[in-house]
């Protein structure tokens, strides 16, 4: 079947804007090289006197000679004085720990953590790991962290901190003032026990849990519906029909890595091949999220329509199941049609479906509960007996706190993992109230927005320096263990609370005691030491007695109030603003992380910036183009941000990511983008991430660095997809090339007698989240180049995820002249994510053009790039059909122009000692993680065994939460990769030019009718 779908990477490509055409016509050099200045007439014709020439020659010779006369520098080799038994220099040691709700392994070399990988034993994240968690290792080596505790703006000692706190707390207690601890959700039983002790010691005190991006409506709705104030655990793996409403569960919502694993288990290559079927996913959303890009049907709604859509879905299901319907306002006919169709789908998959909403409006969440209950999903896909503890925040208590503080009733406030001055919509009010509190303390690791206002800053350890534990879900206990001694004079926050008590216990002993006295007795294990050691080794312990068989719940509450509330909320006029967490930046806590800042947004591919996503239709109406600065105003708060025209954005809405615009994050993250938290409004007592705004064009422009159109596909047939119905008829549908291929070989075949390394990428599983990119950056010492260089198309990432749009509108003629009929078509698009890295072609176009043989083919099918041979002609990059080669235009290490982690000694500790740090003038690219291949082979030889499948895994494959990337030996017929490459869905990108790539792609299969 010939593929006629038109794919485009961005509007520039779709519309062939002059700038885009010009830039891409230049091939490798998007920017003109200043050759003209050098070779203009005046230079060529000017006479160079013979004496000057000789002088220059002489000087040059002399300088070179002198430089060559340099004595070999003396290298010191300093061994351990007493070597820890488990460390062998040159061999990595792995430790389990838990970071931001993901169970991970920390790879350490000679005592310093250098990389974070997923813990494959984990029952929750199952070896997947997100970008943000991986990048947190760089936060450890951030030289912007506080080196010691501070009091009143001056450095102090921990003894003084303890004494001052003790005094302030007793003063507060004796004046019968309140003591408050404002803590982020920590899900740590031991920390909770420490805080409980603290509260018992100071009866006036209270711990308030507050999350910057809250899910409190789900908790409150469950309290309302079933009298259980819990955050359910969800299981997408049991769902045949998945319906999401503005819930980016693959990107940011509650536990995205866990959900991605579950989600793809019914959509990946194995499931498709074995069952000839896959789950059906319908996503209703405002702005294009990565969850929306994976949906089989994506329906665009405004935030104000979300409640109505859910209500109509409820009504449709209620009428089919004999429940009473509710009265809500109407929706446009096309949306209603989609809702009815979705209701039918859900009805046909009772007990095997799931409906989730990202809304933080209690009434909406109550309706979602009612729907899941109607469908019998409780106990099957939604579990409120075994619940999640990752989000426990409650905004109602924040308002109480502000009131108490402004009345002067609070004697001391402590901030643990929270930064309300930055994240609270009522920050100004909070700030004013905070001024009335005599003693304030922050455990922030830097002088952040809130810490700057505090009397005492008691910097907490980085999570990689800490002992702790976590209960992510009922009965699932995780270990947090340190992998390095504290880099700075920092101390775990819990130590302060313990020091206030009389026991003087250190927190490690406390954690062990807590496990011994509280968790271990429930576990049924017979020996605590072995129980504890096993937990340390595996990273978690499951206490079976706390895991219950999920029960079914039926909803029987009156929905009239809910209907009223939804009707009220839907009654809005004007441009609606939708606030979301971006996949890379999250809530903004790691805003000073250069890896995350340079990681392209999975959808817009914007780096280093925040922006206003606007629909094409509205942009045309307002005369806005990409990079035009617009002012967004709601009430008293307004910000100016550049606009990005976003296909898939609902007309009449704009979206802004939270987590940007930090003013006190650190040198890399300060003043990038604008803070959108103040736009949050309160609806039914919880923070609501949508509001009505005015948007005006300011007339200015602001340059944005986006990687999306770096390189063009020139209309070539490199993205292939099919539908489930076609796949059922012919599994190979969609994977054939639309062009006739005639193979003529110019070159001899390479012999590959030992291994033949290859990769298979399941594009149906890939969510585009970018975890692979961060993993690659960490593994291969990929340099961060900064915004200016990204704009010059000089980003160094070895792997990128190409994101292609297509129009969904039926009957839309796709011709070269006119690709869309009306501007509304830009709402209704599909997206394909295609990870792209060096294809390790057998007939590589780069290898034939290298004049110095720096690009060579190995007998294991690797396309080798030899840095010490490369002279930087860049012919290879110019000749590469896949545009995956990266040139070092500068020395990115030890260069003040690139003041990121490679410019300071501390930041350099994150570098992988097994990979060369490339210098200026050298070409580099994906090596298939050859250092891991070599290590894996060496291990096999040492053991005298054949290399087993799965022992060697590239960094990208290792990190992928969707298991979309599989790496291995094609010569091994039983390896996973050779099985996948034999799959009917497999095709090779640009196979018609006979480069014979080593990377196969599996087609996207969409479970929709077309």
């Amino acid at each position, binding site marked *: 079947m010939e593929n006629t779908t038109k794919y485009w990477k961005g509007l520039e490509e779709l519309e062939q804007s002059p700038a885009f055409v010009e830039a891409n016509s230049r091939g490798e050099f998007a920017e003109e090289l200043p050759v003209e200045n050098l070779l203009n007439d005046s230079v060529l014709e000017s006479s160079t006197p013979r004496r000057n020439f000789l002088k220059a020659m002489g000087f040059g010779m002399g300088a070179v000679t002198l430089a060559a006369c340099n004595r070999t520098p003396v290298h010191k080799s*300093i061994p351990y004085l007493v070597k820890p038994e488990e460390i062998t220099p040159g061999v990595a040691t792995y430790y389990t720990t838990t970071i931001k709700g993901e169970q991970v392994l920390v790879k350490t070399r000679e005592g310093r953590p250098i990389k974070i990988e997923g813990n494959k034993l984990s029952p929750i994240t199952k070896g997947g790991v997100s970008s943000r968690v991986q990048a947190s290792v760089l936060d450890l080596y951030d030289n912007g962290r506080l080196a010691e505790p501070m009091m009143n703006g001056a450095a102090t000692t921990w003894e003084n901190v303890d004494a001052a706190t003790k005094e302030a707390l007793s003063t507060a207690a004796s004046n019968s003032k309140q003591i408050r601890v404002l803590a982020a959700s920590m899900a740590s039983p031991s920390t909770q026990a420490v805080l409980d002790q603290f509260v018992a010691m100071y009866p006036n005190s209270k711990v308030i849990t507050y999350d910057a991006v809250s899910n409190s409506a789900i908790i409150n709705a469950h309290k309302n519906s079933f009298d259980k104030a819990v955050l359910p655990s969800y299981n997408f793996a049991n769902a045949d029909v998945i319906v999401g409403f503005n819930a980016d569960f693959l990107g940011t919502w509650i536990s995205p890595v866990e959900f991605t694993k579950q989600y793809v288990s019914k959509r990946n290559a194995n499931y498709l091949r074995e069952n000839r079927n896959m789950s059906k996913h319908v996503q209703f959303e405002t702005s294009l999220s990565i969850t929306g890009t994976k949906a089989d049907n994506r329906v665009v709604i405004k935030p104000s329509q979300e409640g109505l859509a859910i209500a109509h879905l409820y009504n449709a299901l209620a009428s089919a199941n004999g429940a009473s319907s509710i009265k809500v306002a109407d929706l446009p006919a096309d949306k209603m049609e989609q809702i009815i169709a979705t209701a039918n789908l859900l009805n046909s998959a009772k007990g095997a479906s799931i409906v989730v909403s990202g809304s933080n409006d209690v009434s909406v969440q109550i309706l979602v509960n009612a729907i899941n209950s109607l469908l019998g999903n409780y106990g099957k896909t939604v579990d409120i007996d075994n619940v999640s503890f990752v989000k426990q925040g409650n905004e109602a208590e924040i308002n109480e706190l502000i009131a108490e503080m402004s009345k002067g009733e609070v004697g001391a406030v402590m901030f643990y993992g929270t930064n309300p001055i930055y994240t609270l919509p009522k920050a100004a009010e909070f700030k004013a109230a905070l001024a009335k509190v005599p003693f304030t303390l922050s455990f922030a690791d830097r002088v952040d927005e809130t810490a700057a206002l505090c009397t005492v800053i008691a910097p907490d350890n980085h999570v990689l320096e800490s002992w702790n534990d976590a209960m992510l879900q009922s009965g699932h206990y995780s270990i947090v263990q340190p992998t390095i001694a504290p880099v700075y004079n920092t101390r775990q926050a819990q130590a302060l609370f313990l020091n206030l008590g009389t026991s003087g216990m250190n927190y490690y002993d406390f954690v062990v005691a807590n496990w011994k006295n509280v968790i271990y007795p429930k576990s049924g294990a017979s020996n605590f030491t072995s129980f504890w050691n096993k937990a340390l080794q595996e990273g978690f312990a499951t206490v079976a007695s706390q895991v219950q068989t999920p029960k079914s719940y039926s909803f029987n509450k009156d929905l009239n109030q809910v209907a009223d509330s939804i009707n009220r909320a839907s009654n809005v006029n004007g441009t609606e603003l939708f606030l979301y967490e971006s996949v890379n930046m999250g809530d903004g806590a790691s805003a000073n992380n250069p890896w995350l800042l340079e990681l392209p947004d999975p959808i817009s591919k914007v780096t280093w910036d925040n922006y206003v996503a606007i629909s094409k239709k509205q942009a045309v109406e307002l005369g806005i183009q990409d990079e035009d600065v617009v002012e967004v105003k709601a009430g008293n708060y307004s910000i100016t941000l550049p606009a990005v025209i976003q296909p898939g954005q609902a007309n009449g809405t704009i979206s802004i990511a939270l987590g940007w615009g930090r003013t006190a994050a650190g040198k890399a993250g300060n003043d990038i983008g604008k803070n959108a938290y103040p736009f949050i409004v309160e609806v039914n007592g919880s923070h609501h991430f949508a509001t009505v705004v005015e948007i005006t064009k300011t007339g200015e422009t602001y340059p944005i660095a986006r990687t999306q159109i770096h390189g063009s596909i020139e209309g070539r047939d490199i993205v292939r997809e099919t539908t489930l119905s076609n796949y059922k008829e012919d599994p190979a549908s969609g994977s054939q090339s639309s062009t006739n291929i005639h193979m003529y070989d110019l070159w001899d075949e390479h012999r590959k007698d030992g291994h033949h390394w290859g990769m298979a990428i399941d594009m149906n599983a890939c969510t585009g989240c970018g975890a692979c990119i961060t993993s690659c950056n960490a593994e291969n010492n990929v340099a961060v180049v900064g915004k200016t260089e990204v704009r010059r198309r000089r980003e160094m990432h070895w792997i990128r995820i190409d994101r292609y749009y297509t129009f969904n509108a039926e009957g839309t003629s796709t011709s070269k002249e006119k690709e869309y009929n009306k501007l509304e078509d830009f709402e209704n698009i599909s997206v394909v994510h295609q990870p792209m890295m060096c294809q390790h072609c057998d007939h590589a176009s780069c290898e034939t053009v290298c004049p110095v043989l720096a690009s060579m083919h190995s*007998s294991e099918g690797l396309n080798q790039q030899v840095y010490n041979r490369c002279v930087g002609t860049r012919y290879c990059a110019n000749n590469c059909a896949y545009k995956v080669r990266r040139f070092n235009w500068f020395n990115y290490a030890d260069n003040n122009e690139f003041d990121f982690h490679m410019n300071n000694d501390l930041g350099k500790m994150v570098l992988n000692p097994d990979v060369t740090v490339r210098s200026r003038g050298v070409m580099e690219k994906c090596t298939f993680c050859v250092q891991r291949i070599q290590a894996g082979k060496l291990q096999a030889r040492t053991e005298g065994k054949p290399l087993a499948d799965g022992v060697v895994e590239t960094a990208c494959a290792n990190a992928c939460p969707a298991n979309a990337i599989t790496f291995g030996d094609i010569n091994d017929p039983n390896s996973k990769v050779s099985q996948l490459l034999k799959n009917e869905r497999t095709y090779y990108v640009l196979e018609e030019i006979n480069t014979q790539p080593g990377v196969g792609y599996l087609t996207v299969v969409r479970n929709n009718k077309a």
Partner: protein
Amino acid sequence: MFKNALLNFKKTALKSSILMVAVLFAGIVQAQDPAEGETLFKQNCTSCHAVKRKVVGPALAGVQERWADKALLVKFIQNSQAVINGGDAYSKELYAKYNNTVMPAHAFLSDAQVGSILAYVDVEANKVEEVTADAGKAGEGAGSSEDGGISATSIWTLILVIAILFGIILVMNRVIGTLERLILQKNGVEITPEIEQRGEPFAGLKQLANNKRFVLIASILFVITLAVLGYQDLMKIGIDQGYQPKQPIAFSHEIHAGQYKINCQYCHSGAYKSKSASIPSANVCMNCHKYVQATEKYNGNISPEISKIYAALDYNPETQAYGNNPKPIEWVRVHNLQDFVYFPHSQHVKVAGIECQKCHGPVQEMKEVYQFAPLTMGWCINCHQETQMDHAKDNAYYARLIKAHEALKKGESMTVSNIGGLECVKCHY
């Protein structure tokens, strides 16, 4: 306490005459032979005892004064536990003082032999004064000769000799010239007056300079010589073969690997399981050097080089306690590969079974380690081309490769280069 007692004893012992002491105890043990005693002492005692220093057991100087019953002392040496269990108060006290460390029985020593050992101990104990003085002198002497190295005087002498020789050559030349002229005059050859020759001393050279053929050949030779020398010199850039830096501790591989035949792996355990062979940590040194202190070479004092290990670890040999001010030892790296080369030791040592000496040279003969191999890529490649893959036969990993090699090149032996051992990414990534 014990230390004080020892000091007190030393003072008193010195006050009394050495002879007196010797005579006093002469009768107690028979047939004392300090020479025999020395041999026996070194064979049996040094691992736990020194004469003037506490090691595992007490310092032995004055041991005979401390024991009231000399016969019991001999018995104690032969079987300490028997004496302790026998109820002797002093031996019990001693046992408790040394943390109940059991002194092994030496029943194989006869009473006479024990006597010899005790005699040797006395001789050693009383040597103290004169010996230290001697050691000091010897040390000074060695120091001065070492400091100078190739002394300035010798260089000047050399220059002088060369100058004199040069002078002689000049004079001889002159003499020969005069003689030649005289001979020529005798033969009636007309010669230009000497005065003229004096005005043009380089006439010969001038003549040569006018000879075009000579000039051509000379310049070609000159250029070739320059080119050859230049090339040779340039090729040496970055090659540090023979590099032998001075190390912070004069550790001798000759003694450890050569004389005592300690396996390389004992200290460089990393070579078998890691990329890096790794320099042993100081705690590995302490496995032996907690007891081995080479005091016999330094007249009862701990070897100054071994003391450096103690200093690094902040270890006090007297109290056998570690302080909290350790300082790492900064060894100077001898073998430096470029940063873009990844050389795995375990592949070569463990998998291929190559001897360390193949690349590191006769380490067991090196007092101070030097770089034996040039460590150039050509040197690596050469070995990869020549080395037969003998070890591969017994290693299941290589089965596939061996099969392919057999099918492709029947009968030819397999070298490292046949299985991709010359490919770039094997070492560069």
